[in-house]
């Protein structure tokens, strides 16, 4: 079985994890996956969005500020201490010698590692599964399901983005895209989605 996540898509998930930690979120949500796509501006996916990473981070911060202001809490921009590391390896433990049977099926947590690495233990798969919000898990599952019908036959950043663009509000990524003024249908068209 070929690795089902191309390196670019693994990079998106790794960057999403870094963004979640930077923001103080406990789980990787669809909004973090969107930021993960924007971490790699040279991809077709990032170009289809027409916005950059700082703009998306600022938009998320502005949404939070507005919600806190509604509670009567005024906060200045709490800039993250340091930019997230693009080269972060989300689950370095996955490279360690692993024992036990891998989880099977189309669970993105189980297949994210690919065949070129040591198979993750069930415990590692469980760890990643709990690190993903249900929306983020659905997005990765959708990208996995579509991948075999595409030329690359693997999950690419473009497939992750297409799955993100299908999510209707109040999905966090949809809310962020609306705030950024991104036309989701137009972005899908630019990525060649026929629907």
């Amino acid at each position, binding site marked *: 079985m070929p690795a089902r996540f191309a390196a670019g898509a693994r990079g998106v998930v790794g960057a999403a994890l870094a963004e979640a930690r930077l*923001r*103080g*979120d*406990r789980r990787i949500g669809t909004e973090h996956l969107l930021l993960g796509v924007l971490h790699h501006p040279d991809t077709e996916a990032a170009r289809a969005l027409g916005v950059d990473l700082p703009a998306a981070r600022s938009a998320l911060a502005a*949404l*939070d*500020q507005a*919600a*806190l*202001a*509604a*509670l*009567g*809490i005024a*906060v200045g921009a*709490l800039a*993250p*201490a340091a930019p997230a590391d693009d080269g972060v390896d989300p689950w370095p433990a996955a490279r360690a010698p692993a024992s036990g049977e891998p989880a099977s099926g189309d669970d993105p947590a189980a297949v994210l590692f690919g065949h070129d690495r040591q198979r993750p233990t069930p415990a590692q798969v469980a760890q990643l599964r709990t690190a993903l919000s249900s929306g983020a898990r659905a997005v990765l599952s959708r990208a996995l399901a579509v991948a075999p019908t595409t030329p690359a036959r693997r999950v690419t950043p473009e497939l992750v983005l297409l799955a993100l663009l299908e999510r209707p509000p*109040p999905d966090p990524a949809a*809310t962020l895209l609306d705030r950024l003024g991104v036309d989701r249908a137009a972005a899908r068209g630019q990525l060649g989605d026929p629907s």
Partner: protein
Amino acid sequence: MDVGDLLTRVRAGDPALGLRAVGALHRLAEQVEAQAVVTAREQGWSWEQIGDALGVSRQSAHAKHGRAAG
């Protein structure tokens, strides 16, 4: 806008605002905690003192912040 106005909006069918505010409070707390722990370590606080201040064990405080705050 005060909390009463917010509650009015939530009751009027805008749960997104209330839920976003809850998430924003969590994130704000995490960000303040991370910065405060770094400052405390720089000023010589022990992990035990930091854990007591945060209401967690010394081990928990170190496991969560040890990499960033040394």
